[in-house]
């Protein structure tokens, strides 16, 4: 076969490979998860995404240093460099992380991975102590309460495990996956499922107390306020549900509602949908509309945050928007460099001495490897970025 012919064949194959590879363009599993955790009396930002779980210092976004528990001196690696609190999946059996870690005591952290494992990690030296096989992958954060760990499984079911021996206490099957952190309300565990239901189960034995059919997949943790649950679904509706599972009122949105809503002190609930709309509803008047605005060019996956008189949302268009909470007017819009999709939940840090910050910080996650976590001041000014 002549060279030119070989080249033509190679080109054709390359075209085929490229076209089929287009499909694989979005092969990621989920977006970063961010939260605040207390470790040995210090509060840290916990960021879990893909290969790493990192603990960061709120004031500057730098990875927390590992300290010798005896003398308080920094722990150093073989080259003499100070060690940081980063747990890498690549060094520990190829774990992938999208859920928040859970500290269970001063020396132990529990991390669920997307490879069907619960990892018990020594949080002082950040080393894997034990990998406990579980039945399914985990993509949403777990809940720990009173010595029990409640694990939502990506492909369906909620499992309860004892924190001392990690043996399964009970398991509730669901037809589809659970992609949101369960919520503890009195003696009930409330969780949504993609099988269109919001479930309440007895925390002691997993017996189903009620299951509300919301007509579409539910992928967010409900907001609990005034003894009511507020949650949206993929059938473009937002619901107000009583604590015994009765739908009290609903509101029609423009697209799927995926994020957990926010509520202000006046009883107004704020939610966003995947068409880029933000809605403000009166929770005390059967979800009556206060205002609804299309804010972003693309969808808003994460729930809004209420900061003083503003509502903040982050969109797939790579921008963060600050709105007037009374009328929805756009106050400020900030574009993240390179405009990566902003899909992960946001986190608001209030000023405190423990956090060592003197102004509110708004944390936004992206899937850009160079800016996984961006901290904004209340006025929209970017404070720091992780990693640098």
């Amino acid at each position: 076969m002549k060279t030119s012919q070989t080249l033509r064949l190679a080109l054709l194959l390359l075209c085929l490979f490229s076209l089929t590879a287009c499909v694989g363009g979005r092969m990621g599993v989920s977006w970063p998860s961010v939260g605040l955790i207390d470790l040995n009396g210090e509060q840290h930002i916990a960021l879990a995404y893909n290969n790493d779980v990192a603990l960061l210092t709120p004031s500057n976004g730098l990875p927390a240093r590992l300290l010798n528990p005896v003398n308080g001196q920094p722990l150093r690696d073989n080259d003499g460099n100070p060690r940081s609190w980063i747990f890498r999946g690549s060094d520990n059996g190829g774990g992938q992380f999208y859920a928040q870690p859970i500290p269970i005591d001063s020396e132990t952290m529990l991390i669920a991975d997307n490879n069907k494992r619960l990892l018990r990690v020594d949080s002082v030296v950040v080393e894997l102590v034990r990998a406990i096989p579980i039945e399914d992958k985990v993509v949403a954060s777990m809940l720990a309460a009173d010595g029990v760990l409640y694990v939502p499984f990506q492909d369906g079911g909620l499992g309860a495990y004892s924190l001392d021996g990690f043996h399964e206490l009970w398991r509730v099957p669901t037809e589809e996956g659970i992609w949101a952190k369960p919520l503890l309300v009195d003696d009930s565990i409330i969780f949504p499922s993609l099988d269109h239901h919001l479930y309440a189960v007895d925390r002691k034995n997993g017996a189903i107390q009620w299951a509300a059919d919301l007509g579409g997949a539910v992928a967010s943790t409900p907001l609990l306020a005034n003894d009511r649950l507020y949650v949206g679904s993929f059938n473009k509706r937002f619901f107000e549900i009583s604590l015994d599972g009765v739908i009290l009122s609903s509101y029609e949105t423009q697209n799927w509602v995926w994020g957990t809503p926010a509520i202000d002190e006046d009883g107004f609930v704020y939610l966003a949908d995947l068409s880029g709309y933000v809605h403000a509803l009166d929770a005390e008047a059967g979800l009556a509309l206060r205002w609804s605005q299309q804010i972003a060019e693309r969808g808003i996956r994460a729930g809004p945050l209420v900061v003083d008189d503003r509502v903040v949302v982050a969109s797939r268009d790579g921008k963060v928007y600050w709105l007037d909470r009374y009328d929805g007017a756009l106050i400020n819009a900030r574009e993240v460099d390179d405009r990566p999709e902003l899909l992960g939940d946001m986190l608001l840090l209030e000023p405190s001495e423990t956090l060592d910050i003197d102004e509110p910080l708004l944390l936004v996650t992206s899937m850009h490897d160079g800016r996984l976590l961006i901290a904004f001041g209340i006025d929209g000014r970017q404070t720091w970025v992780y990693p640098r």
Partner: protein
Amino acid sequence: MWDLILNPFVTILAWLYSALNQDIVLAIIVLTVIIRVLTWPLFAKQQESSRRMQQLQPQLKKLQEKYKNDKEKMSQAQMKLYRENKVNPVGGCFPMLIQFPILIGLYQAIFFALAATPFQLVDLSERLLIPGLDSLIPLQRLWSPIPQLTDLLPTLDLTLAPTENPPYALALPLLVLITTWAQQKLTMSMTGQKSSKKDDDDEEDSNPGGQAAAMTKSMTTIMPIMFGFFSLSFSVGLSLYFVTSNLIGMVQYSPQGRRVLERVFGGKGDEAPVEVVFADDEPSPKKPRRSKKKKPRKK
């Protein structure tokens, strides 16, 4: 731009899923059949063009021999031959270029509709164009080939690769490989492209028809292996699409299938003879199909 092709496919697939009792495998099969039937006129045009090119091969060879020392004249004579026979040497490419994005769009639609992770599912929210389909999400991803025999043939997860499913799922990449090979073979036989050992490399390189034949020959070997390999790592749902698509292709290439489709679309019969017109300065060879023995005149 790509969404203009992809989103209607995703929507139709979701609609079919709804209409077909929420059976995603049936929806994939029906959508593949619909698309393959609708793209039949393009496909037939491409085949017709290949066949005409093939029929001109003897004349092209003669031109190559005649003008082997004058490439410019050879090129002019070739163009004249094409013009007089109303054949576009790259005519077969245009229908293929239109078909290709459609088939890739269909394949991607299956991938997006079977979203199994949050990252994949968030995309789907912008792709459903008909209201009311949102309540179907997520589409069913578990499938039993024979629901009565789930002990023997456990349920497959359509979003996972065959290697992550029960072992019998590994038969799917093999099926993809076999059906792709069979379809390729049928393509060659229907367009009259045969691998001739007489065609040496030089000839292939300067003769477009020879190149096409050589290319087709190589693709017959490479494509089945490549698609079989893809199917090992892609989801089972996509393997089902590949197999369905290949089987439909085989029906389209079969004489019976072609006759039915030609009746529906009013196309030209497959066996319609191609009348070759020869360039002015070329001696007209005997036309075997058209030649009739002269009856002796009665005196």
